[in-house]
């Protein structure tokens, strides 16, 4: 193998190639050579912590766009984008009813690209819900929930609920009229549960109505509590896709 990869006499291109991809530092980061041979391509996937989510080879039908429309992957991509924009937003936002609304106004007016940052976070959140719903429909209509993937479908339903909760907890944070009344309406619905309704509502709001306690609870759930939980469920979800034999395929 090694003989085939190296030309007998080095051309200028080979020298450059070796300089970049075969030096000590590069090889300490990426254990394999540049992925230009099947062997290196498989190693690139297998030895990379991010890429090793994937198997090294997959069935031909699974790279057809119309088989999955990339919906699950894009949902995950939205989550990553929301994490990045969310962390940046945290620099400018204090979850107190005195400052929250003002912070958003200042973010939009005074921070360079602040409005764009907030817009990205907002539209990605909406996109994630739509993508998760479409992903669920894709899995259903391709019969991909069938054995042995039953449990992963259940994990998917939990992920859908967590996605809604993440969006719902984020909805209150700007502390404007839209946020306040949407959460008031939403938590009133929780309060109408036949058993433990009022108790659940109180637990969620930290009081009888939306106020400072609700804001800090929603904020904490939004930026750390729910992201941790959803990350665990996502890890299980992705792991089980591999364990259960990859994407579903006709028998």
């Amino acid at each position, binding site marked *: 193998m090694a003989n085939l990869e190296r030309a007998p006499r080095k051309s200028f291109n080979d020298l450059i190639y070796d300089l970049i991809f075969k030096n000590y530092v590069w090889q300490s980061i990426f254990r394999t050579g540049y992925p230009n041979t099947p062997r290196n391509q498989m190693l690139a996937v297998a030895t990379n912590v991010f*890429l090793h989510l994937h198997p090294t080879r997959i069935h*031909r039908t699974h790279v057809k766009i119309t088989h999955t429309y990339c919906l699950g992957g894009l949902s995950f991509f939205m989550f990553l984008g929301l994490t990045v924009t969310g962390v940046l937003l945290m620099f400018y936002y204090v979850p107190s009813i005195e400052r929250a*609304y003002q912070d958003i106004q200042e973010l939009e007016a005074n921070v360079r690209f602040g409005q764009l940052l907030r817009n990205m976070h907002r539209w*990605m959140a909406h996109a994630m819900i739509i993508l998760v719903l479409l992903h669920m429909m894709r899995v259903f209509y391709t019969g991909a929930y069938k054995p042995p993937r039953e449990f992963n479908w259940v994990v998917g339903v939990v992920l859908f609920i967590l996605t809604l909760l993440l969006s719902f907890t984020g909805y209150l944070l700007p502390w404007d009229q839209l946020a306040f009344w*949407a959460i008031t309406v939403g938590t009133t*619905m929780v309060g109408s549960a036949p058993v433990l309704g009022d108790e659940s509502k109180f637990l969620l709001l930290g009081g009888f109505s939306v106020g400072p306690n609700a804001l800090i609870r929603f904020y904490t759930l939004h930026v750390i509590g729910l992201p941790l939980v959803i990350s665990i469920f996502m890890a299980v979800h992705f792991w089980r896709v591999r364990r259960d034999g990859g994407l579903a395929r006709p028998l």
Partner: protein
Amino acid sequence: MVSRAAAAIRTRPRREREAEVLVWPDLVFIEFISALIFSIALMVLSAMVNAPLLNRADPDTTPNPSKAPWYFLNLQELLLHMEPAWAGVIVPTIALVLLAAIPYWDRDTQGQGVWFGTKFAGRLTVFGFTAATLITSLLIIWDGSLHVVWTENVIRGLGLNSDFTWPGGLDWFRNLRGFDTGIPWDSLGFTIGGFTMFEDWRAIPLGIPGTTTDPWLLNLNFPSFLSQQIIPVATMVGLPVLFVLFCKGLGWIHSRRDIALLIFSAFIGVYLTTTIVGTAFRGQGQDLKPPWDIVVLEE
């Protein structure tokens, strides 16, 4: 039960190396491109459309209509047609549990990995979605009493009767509440063997006095119970059953997968319809209105 796990492994397709492609570059490339397209699209959207920011939150000023985030507006829509406990909590909980339970009920491993894998899947999907969307829309129109307004307008407009109003004898058909307020419940008592039954339909004694302080458990308001609980729940249970029987009659259903396809498609139809109506067709006081007539008042 040993065989189930074993069967799952046994029925897994054997690897066919020649039909496989390498993840790098074939899949990684697609993932990269789709991520890129979404990043650019969202960047463009964010540059053009700003996230909404209204006035600072004010507990003393209630916007009319007040709405939950759009993805909960299907539940808020249900809230208008039934007891809040059903709409806000019980129905979504049951829906999610049933959704999660699909693979434990439909265990046949045939037909996976292909779109619409059964013979009549396409018809079932189109029928389930369309019929559920239509029926949900009609039910919403009926409960919004739009049929009353339309009938009155048509009869007046045609000059048949210039001051026609919806006949009092049909008050019970005005909307769902009509079963509560439009029926003369007070005169509906009857006598069996010398005992007068149900003299007061609005306070049917249930509990033993002194055992509970909850007036609802002590006395049942039957007309309200009928319109807010029995009819909505019977509709939500009955319509799917009718759907299945109807499609069975047409010979479209041959497996549990077919039933799942039909009901799931109907669910998507209801989910979409209620979300769209709740988002775009509910004005002040949650009245049914076309989107262009909706203004938000602060009161």
